[in-house]
C-alpha cells in the first residue's frame, strides 16, 4: 500500500473544505450554514496539523488550537445573532435575511 503522506491529509482537507463551501453557498438554513463554516475551519485545522507533522514542529498545532478558540467564539456569537434574529423575524432562512439590501 502507498504510505500515507502529507498529501493524503491535504486531499481530505480539500474535500472537507469544498464540502463546507458548498454548504455555505447553497443551503438556506442558517444553522447548517454555520455548521458548514465549522467544516471549513476543520479542514484548515487538518491542514495545519498535517503540516505541523511534516515540518516536525508544533506551530501548526498551536494555530489549530487558536482556530478552535476562534470557532467557539464564532459559533457562540453566530448562534446568538441567529436567536435574536429568529425572535424578531420568525425565520432562519438565509435568503429571507436580506435587510442589508436597503
Amino acid at each position: 500500500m502507498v504510505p500515507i503522506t502529507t498529501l493524503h491529509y491535504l486531499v481530505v482537507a480539500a474535500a472537507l473544505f469544498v464540502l463546507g463551501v458548498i454548504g455555505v453557498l447553497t443551503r438556506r438554513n442558517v444553522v447548517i450554514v454555520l455548521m458548514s463554516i465549522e467544516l471549513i475551519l476543520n479542514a484548515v485545522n487538518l491542514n495545519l496539523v498535517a503540516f505541523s507533522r511534516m515540518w516536525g514542529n508544533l506551530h501548526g498545532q498551536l494555530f489549530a488550537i487558536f482556530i478552535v478558540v476562534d470557532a467557539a467564539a464564532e459559533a457562540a456569537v453566530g448562534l446568538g445573532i441567529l436567536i435574536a434574529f429568529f425572535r424578531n423575524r420568525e425565520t432562519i432562512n438565509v435568503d429571507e435575511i436580506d435587510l442589508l439590501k436597503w
Partner: protein
Amino acid sequence: MNPVMNSALNSGMAPVATPFFFYMLAGLAVIGGVLVITRRNAVHSALALIVTLLAVAGLYLMLYAPFVAGVQIIVYAGGIMVLFLFVIMLVNIERSSKERRFNRMWPVGLAAACALLALFVSAFAKGKALFPDRMMTLPESSNTQQIATMLYGEAGRMGQYTFAFEIASLLLLVAILGAVIMTKKKI
C-alpha cells in the same frame, strides 16, 4: 483512542494498519461532511458533523497531535455541537422541513465549489513533488508539555504564544458577552 491504532503508531509493529485507519477515518469524515450539507433536518446534519469532527480528531491522533485531538473532542464535539443542538431545538420550526433545502443560486454555488475543487486538485498535482514521502516523527509523549511551553513559557519566561493566548481568551470573553447580550430578552 483506539488501542490498536496507538500500537501501530508507536511501535511501528503493524504499519499495515496505518493506511487502513487513515482511509477509514478520512472516509468517515468526508461522508459525514456530505451528510452535513445534504440532510434536510438540521439535527441529522449536526449528528453527521459530530461524526466528521470525531473522525478528524482521529486523524489528529494519527498525526501525533493528541492534545489537539483532545481539544477537538472537548470543545467541538462536547461544547460547540451541544450549542448547535440547543439552538436547533430552540428555533425548531415545522415549516423548515417542508421547504426547499437549497437557495435559488445553488447551481452557481455548486459550480464555484467545483471550480475550487479543480483548483485544489490541479495545485496538488502540480506541487506533488514538494511533499516528502515520509513525515517527520513528532514525539507523542511530550506533545502536551511542548504545547504548554510554547503557550505559557517556562521558568519565568513568556512563551512564544503567551500574548496571543491572552488575546484569544479576551476574544472568547467578548464573544460570551456578545452572545449573552444578544440572546437575553431583558438584561
